[in-house]
């Protein structure tokens, strides 16, 4: 439980930035992350993974592991008590490999022992005899009917066609381009981890870092062969997520080991294992053709997108729908023909990562917009503004854009920011930094722009709801509120926002946000930029239900709750403490955003998305063109957040998201060769350091979406989407190179 006692209501309701209730524990080191947990008689779990991307399992010999002193359990697929497969959308992923492996890193066996090193060494003593098969490692080739099938049903996971307007439209100005996006990792700092404790009723309690407790619950209970009420999940401290905790990782394994041994089992992945333990951002190949008139107004876009989903489905079906339906960007285009494909290969599985399909497409369509501007001799911002969608325009799906859509305004905001001055002679502000690779010679400056679009919430008819339980009671002679949801705080600040909403709605200062767990209904996932919208909406609705009961008790309909009192036009009507003398008031509410529709399978038409969100970036870079080193000098960004419930956290999301887009632009890629990850460490997979991320100039617009709670617009993902193309555009401007692949590496700039 985290409790805050703010000084005044006005300083800590929505629209203000009160301190995080978990912040003190986090700065003192006392906050309990999922890897910090401990229980009496606890064992440690370890996982044996396949070294091969594709192989048949001929034989597994557990003898060496079982004979290891300190080992308490060695389990394989035969020991999975319930369903042997799991998956978020499509249950195709074995809990433990059955007869074959489809990616290098697939779990084959699990071990519980009294020390983590003992468990690892015992796992290494398991002998698995494989018949190694040639892996399918190319997404395009996977679509060829002659290619081996990764799964019996074939390699095509989903094809999303979009057909809008005239498929044969022509235009006087045409630009084409083929683009490629590498496989990015969420690289959350807290590795996959959790503690499973067997319960007396034959069930299990799992303390876990996840994005979606109930998403895990359904899969874990099914795989354990237990009724859901015997599997109880509580949210342990989450060390970042970014999509990488939407899928199950060690949840079922830890529970199996705990139920088998009758002892608590903790599993904590190492950093290396973490690279194999969660899905990644889909690598993509994108081919685009843009047709425009002489003024630069878009006439048509034709595109083909292939996303490599890797060995298992995860959320690939939704990712490809996003990439395709958002695939032309926030632009008005009358004629659109697009085909998006998600395919199975024997590469590492891919799924959710911040931006979720919109990232890959944005790099391509924004690169195309720059090429078109160059062809026409137009300013890149002016070209984008001429084509910017406005409310009332239709998306390629036919969905009408409602509410504010300030695309042109966001672009102008970042363009009109003063540019940073020339770099001085401090080595630390030059490409290469203190490596002393240049004193300014060979350094060229470039400026680039990008804008992106993202859907907020789950799409295509998904029943996307959240549940909130709000209790108003008297504690220590004062009115107090407890807010209880299953929504995952992953760092974004949701716990703060939930309390702010309760203070604003109920006029009570003391608000406690209970630990998220599965004893209350689902909140849906902390993903798709949706949690403040949907769980925020649920908390507000539950507060309204509580308030209705307060007003019923005092016999008024025209009063509000302020400062612990019921207040009407004539003044204070009642004190909440007195109203609550009749007992506490508790209400549980399931809240839904407006429904969405599936896409037509032939034309891709349909009102599939809940809400659109937009962000724009301007990047300024210095490039050492001799060595291919890039220093991002400054990023200016602007985003419409509808309403900033916690402005400081909103800016934190924008800065953090922008930095992840920077990573994709110039450094972050899981390098997969012949189906094997070659850089599973923070030594070899680089994420931006404080030296790589520049100062940011952030403009936040609050234009208000009339259909959303408080007018808010999802915040988390848009900043990640457009910073990548803006930075690459700036590097192109500095170097004159076409740069059709991210991340951009030094050798792409030097040609060596």
């Amino acid at each position, binding site marked *: 439980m985290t409790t805050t006692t703010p000084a005044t209501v006005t300083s800590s309701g929505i629209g203000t930035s009160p301190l995080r209730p978990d912040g003190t524990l986090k700065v003192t080191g006392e906050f309990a992350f999922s890897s910090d947990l401990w229980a009496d008689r606890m064992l440690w779990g370890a996982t044996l993974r396949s070294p091969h991307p594709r192989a048949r399992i001929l034989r597994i010999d557990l003898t060496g592991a079982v004979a290891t002193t300190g080992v308490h359990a060695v389990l394989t697929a035969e020991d999975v008590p319930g369903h042997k497969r799991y998956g978020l959308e499509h249950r195709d992923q074995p809990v433990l490999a059955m007869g074959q492996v489809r990616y290098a890193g697939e779990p084959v066996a699990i071990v519980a022992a009294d020390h983590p090193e003992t468990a690892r060494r015992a796992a290494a003593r398991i002998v698995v005899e494989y018949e190694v098969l040639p892996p399918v490692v190319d997404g395009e080739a996977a679509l060829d009917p002659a290619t081996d099938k990764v799964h019996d049903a074939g390699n095509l996971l989903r094809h999303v066609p979009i057909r809008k307007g005239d498929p044969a439209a022509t235009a006087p100005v045409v630009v084409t381009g083929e683009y490629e996006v590498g496989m990015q990792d969420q690289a959350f700092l807290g590795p996959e981890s959790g503690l499973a404790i067997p319960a007396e009723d034959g069930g299990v309690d799992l303390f876990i870092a996840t994005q979606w407790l109930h998403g895990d619950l359904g899969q874990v209970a099914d795989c354990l062969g237990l009724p859901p009420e015997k599997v109880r999940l509580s949210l342990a401290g989450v*060390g970042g997520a970014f999509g990488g905790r939407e899928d199950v990782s060690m949840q079922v394994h830890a529970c199996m080991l705990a139920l088998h041994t009758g002892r608590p089992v903790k599993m904590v992945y190492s*950093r290396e294992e973490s690279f194999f333990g969660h899905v990644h951002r889909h690598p993509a190949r994108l081919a685009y053709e843009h047709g425009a008139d002489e003024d630069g107004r878009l006439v048509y876009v034709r595109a083909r997108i292939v996303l490599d989903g890797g060995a298992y489905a995860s959320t690939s079906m939704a990712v490809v729908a996003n990439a395709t339906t958002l695939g032309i960007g926030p632009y008005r285009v009358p004629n659109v023909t697009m085909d998006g494909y998600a395919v199975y290969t024997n590469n590492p599985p891919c799924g959710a990562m911040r931006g979720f399909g919109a990232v890959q497409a944005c790099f391509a369509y924004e690169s195309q917009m720059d090429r078109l501007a160059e062809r026409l001799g137009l300013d890149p911002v002016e070209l984008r503004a001429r084509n910017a969608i406005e409310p009332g325009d239709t998306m390629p799906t036919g969905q009408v854009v409602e509410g504010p859509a300030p695309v042109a305004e966001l672009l102008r905001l970042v363009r009109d920011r003063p540019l940073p001055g020339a770099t001085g002679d401090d080595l630390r502000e030059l490409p290469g930094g203190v490596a002393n690779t240049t004193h300014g010679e060979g350094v060229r400056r470039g400026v680039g722009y990008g804008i992106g679009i993202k859907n907020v919430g789950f799409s295509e008819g998904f029943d996307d709801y959240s549940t909130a339980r709000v209790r108003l009671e008297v504690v220590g002679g004062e009115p107090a509120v407890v807010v209880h949801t299953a929504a995952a705080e992953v760092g974004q600040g949701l716990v703060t926002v939930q309390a702010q909403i309760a203070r604003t709605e109920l006029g009570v200062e003391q608000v406690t946000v209970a630990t998220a767990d599965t004893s209350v209904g689902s909140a849906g996932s902390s993903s798709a930029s949706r949690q403040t919208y949907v769980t925020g909406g649920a908390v507000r609705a539950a507060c309204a239900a509580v308030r209705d009961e307060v007003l019923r008790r005092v016999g008024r309909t025209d009063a509000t709750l302020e400062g612990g009192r019921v207040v009407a036009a004539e003044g204070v009507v009642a004190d909440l403490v007195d109203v609550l003398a009749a007992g506490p008031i508790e209400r549980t509410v399931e809240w839904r955003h407006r429904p969405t529709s599936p896409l037509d399978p032939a034309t891709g038409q349909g009102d599939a998305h809940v809400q659109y969100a937009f962000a724009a970036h301007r990047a300024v870079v210095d490039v050492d063109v001799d060595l291919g080193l890039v220093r991002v000098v400054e990023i200016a960004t602007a985003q419409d957040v509808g309403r900033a419930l916690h402005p400081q956290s909103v800016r934190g999301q924008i800065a953090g998201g922008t930095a992840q887009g920077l990573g994709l632009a110039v450094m972050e890629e899981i390098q997969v060769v012949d189906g094997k990850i070659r850089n599973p460490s923070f030594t070899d997979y680089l994420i931006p350091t404080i030296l790589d991320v520049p100062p940011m100039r952030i403009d936040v617009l609050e234009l208000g979406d009339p259909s959303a709670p408080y007018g808010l617009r999802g915040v988390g993902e848009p900043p990640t989407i457009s910073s990548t193309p803006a930075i690459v555009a700036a590097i192109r401007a500095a170097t004159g190179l076409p740069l059709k692949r991210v991340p951009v590496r030094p050798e792409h700039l030097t040609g060596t």
Partner: protein
Amino acid sequence: MRVNMTVNGEPLRADDVWEGESLLYVLRERLGLPGAKNACEQGECGSCTVYLDDVPVCACLVAAGQAEGRTVRTVEGLAEETALHPVQRAFLEAGAVQCGFCTPGLVVAVHDLLERNPHPSEPDIREALAGNLCRCTGYENIVAAVKLAAAS
């Protein structure tokens, strides 16, 4: 083996330590001090930064036996009984904490920076913290927190 060290001013002993264990593991799993974090355990991320005899180190790169007889100060040992250390307060107030997994290591690193350089320039700040990865904040509010702590 047995390892003795003084941690946050208190003499502590860990028994049955396997020789391959790191100082980080002993702090977290044997001495009940999980503040130093296990993000990479290979010296790349700085999340396990602690003082070893007043020198900041990655606890994951120190073998437990190397700490024998020495003094360790962790993030848990920075605050006073009743008040946060100014660096901790600045992180909180500046919004430098999101998921918080990098925070303990950063707090120790900033504590060390301000001991050495009470009024660092922005390039000084960025250079000093280049060994501490944060995945959530984009570092914007971390820089702000250091400036706030330096001004307090």
